[in-house]
């Protein structure tokens, strides 16, 4: 059978062929890379005719070719890491262009039962972890860029927790793009055994121009618990795609928060499959956009087991000519009775040319469920604005106060770890400092 190859994929197929030669990788991995590449070649780039990409303009990506970036080891002082560091006590890994830089990665002392290291090290030393982090969707799902990542990925991190292992200090992963017009493909995994607990902060930023295409797999065993913050603050000429695929077993708890402030074109997919009874899934975030930025947040929460809860709130603040897209889908499958799922998307449009497309979706095929969804798009509250001004606060400061309140609310209701909350509020403050509409 001959498989169709979409022409726009050709440069990446070529890149794969040249990369293959220098990889002394095990056969099982090469096979998986090849299968993922085949899927990418067959799928090609999405177009606006594909419903999940209907609102996204991919011209920026398809106009140019982004060859995979090579490992680079810039001097630390040139990376300007400091503003992105969250915790002194953190177990930290820094990746530059998708490759772990050991000299910049003070992993520190890990408690018993915790494994943290690069994806390449996991492949070499812990095949079990590397395999567990692999995803069959690379070859089955209609997510071409995740499949491309499966073929071309450079490195990433793996965090594995044995049953009952508790990691008190957060794990900080910092992805620095230093690549120019190249592509960066990190692939990572969190494998949390039953009853384990961890906190993970991922930050993406860089020197601009590059296309980051990241994939993270999260496996939470029974009653495992993960707090996860993802910050995307790439420069305004970057492209950023990120896919997070999580699977939750019985009684597991996942609380994720994403803050999107960067990239010219970005899309993040968060896909959570609830396979165990009574699991909890928190998928929340904020996107703060200005200039010509276009950012899509696409979430799919799949309730395949009964008695689980989902809490999802995304807030958007959009100014200038920026464009935000929210695609939120919650599916409750047959038998997932007593599901309790609520989704809300609220947007502030701060200029006449700012735009948002929002599409909340509920599909319910079970009984006795409590589900709701909603979306709002609006301007700042005029009455509140006048109230603040009537007390002497000038218009710019009053607007800033209301925007900050709107976004802070999303952070405070969703993020329970104080250190993370404070860091997110700090990042929000930095964004507001640069605001033209506030």
């Amino acid at each position: 059978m001959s498989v169709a190859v979409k022409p726009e994929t050709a440069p990446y197929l070529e890149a794969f062929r040249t990369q293959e030669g220098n990889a002394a990788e095990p056969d099982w991995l090469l096979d998986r890379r090849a299968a993922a590449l085949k899927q990418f070649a067959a799928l090609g780039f999405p177009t606006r005719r594909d419903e999940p990409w209907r609102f996204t303009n991919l011209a920026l990506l398809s106009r140019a070719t982004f060859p995979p970036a090579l490992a680079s080891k810039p001097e630390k002082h040139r990376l300007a890491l400091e503003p992105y560091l969250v915790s002194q006590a953190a177990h930290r890994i820094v990746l530059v262009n998708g490759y772990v830089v050991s000299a910049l990665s003070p992993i520190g002392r890990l408690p018993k039962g915790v494994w943290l290291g690069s994806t390449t090290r996991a492949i070499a030393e812990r095949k079990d972890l590397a395999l567990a982090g692999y995803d069959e969707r690379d070859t089955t799902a209609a997510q071409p860029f995740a499949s491309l990542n499966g073929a071309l990925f450079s490195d990433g991190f793996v965090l594995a927790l044995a049953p009952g292992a508790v990691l008190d200090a957060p794990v900080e992963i910092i992805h620095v793009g230093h690549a120019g017009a190249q592509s960066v493909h990190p692939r990572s995994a969190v494998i949390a055994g039953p009853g384990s607990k961890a906190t993970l902060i991922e930050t993406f930023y860089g020197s601009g121009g590059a296309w980051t295409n990241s994939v993270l797999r999260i496996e939470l065993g029974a009653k495992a618990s993960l707090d996860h913050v993802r910050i995307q603050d790439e420069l305004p000429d970057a492209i950023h795609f990120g896919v997070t695929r999580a699977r939750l077993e019985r009684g597991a708890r996942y609380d994720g928060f994403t803050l999107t402030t960067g990239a010219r074109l970005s899309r993040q997919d968060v896909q959570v499959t609830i396979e165990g009874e009574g699991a909890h899934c928190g998928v929340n975030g904020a996107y703060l956009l200005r200039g010509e930025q276009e950012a899509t947040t696409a979430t799919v929460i799949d309730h395949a087991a009964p008695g689980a809860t989902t809490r999802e709130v995304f807030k958007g603040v959009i100014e200038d000519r920026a464009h935000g897209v929210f695609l939120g889908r919650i599916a409750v499958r047959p038998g997932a009775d007593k599901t309790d799922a609520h989704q809300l998307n609220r947007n502030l449009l701060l200029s006449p040319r700012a735009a948002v497309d929002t599409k909340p979706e509920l599909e319910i095929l079970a009984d006795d469920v409590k589900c709701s969804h909603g979306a709002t798009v609006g301007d700042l509250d005029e009455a509140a604005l006048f109230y603040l001004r009537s007390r002497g606060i000038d218009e710019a400061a009053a607007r800033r106060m209301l925007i900050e309140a709107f976004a802070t609310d999303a952070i405070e209701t969703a993020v329970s770890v104080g250190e993370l909350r404070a860091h997110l509020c700090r990042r929000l403050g930095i964004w507001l400092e640069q605001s033209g509409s506030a």
Partner: protein
Amino acid sequence: MLDIKSLHATVGEGTDAKEILRGIDLSVGAGEVHAIMGPNGSGKSTLAGVLAGRPGYTVTSGKVLYEGRDLLALAADERARQGIFLAFQYPVEIPGVNNMYFLRSALNAVRKSRGENELDAGQFLKAVREKLKLLDIGEDLLQRAVNVGFSGGEKKRNEIFQMAMLEPRLAILDETDSGLDIDALRVVATGVNRLRDPKRSIVLITHYQRLLEYIEPDRVHVLGGGKILQSGDKSLALELEKRGYAHLGSAA
């Protein structure tokens, strides 16, 4: 202090514009307390809104001089920094904005424009505690978001507390008595009385004479149909209480 001359104002836009104020003349001297009374729809709240710079009104003719300057040329926040304060009939709830943070920002904006130094958190707290006693407000109220979850009485007390903090030279109290029970009214009135000062003018806008039993005005004006129909001393309020607004109807 405040001189209003033949003030006309409309609400709404274009063909929907409706004239509410139809030639208000009013003069309030420094340190005086004036009560403006009138039935619903007489233009009381519109007058308060126009003076404070609330959006939605258009002044079509007339003048307002505040300390000799053209008040209407100033933006709402500039008026506040120049010493004008409006106590809202319906204080606005602002989720997510902490009451303390809000008030400190406001106070520092006002202080800065007066050429005074801004207060740091410690100095601010000290100032707050002095004024809180004035109005029997618990400190917990300040930790909450602005007016969110406040009872009607708490909201009104919070307005007068803000007035105490900002120390305006002209305070306009828009139906501060509405929705208050007798105990809450007494607390609010006591607070206002303590803020009476030879350098501070107060305009009390009210529907009922009740408030004036606690805050004694120097002058009372009756507003009807967008005009001042009658002015007098405090005995005018008592007369209105007995005879109602109805007998003024023909003049309005």
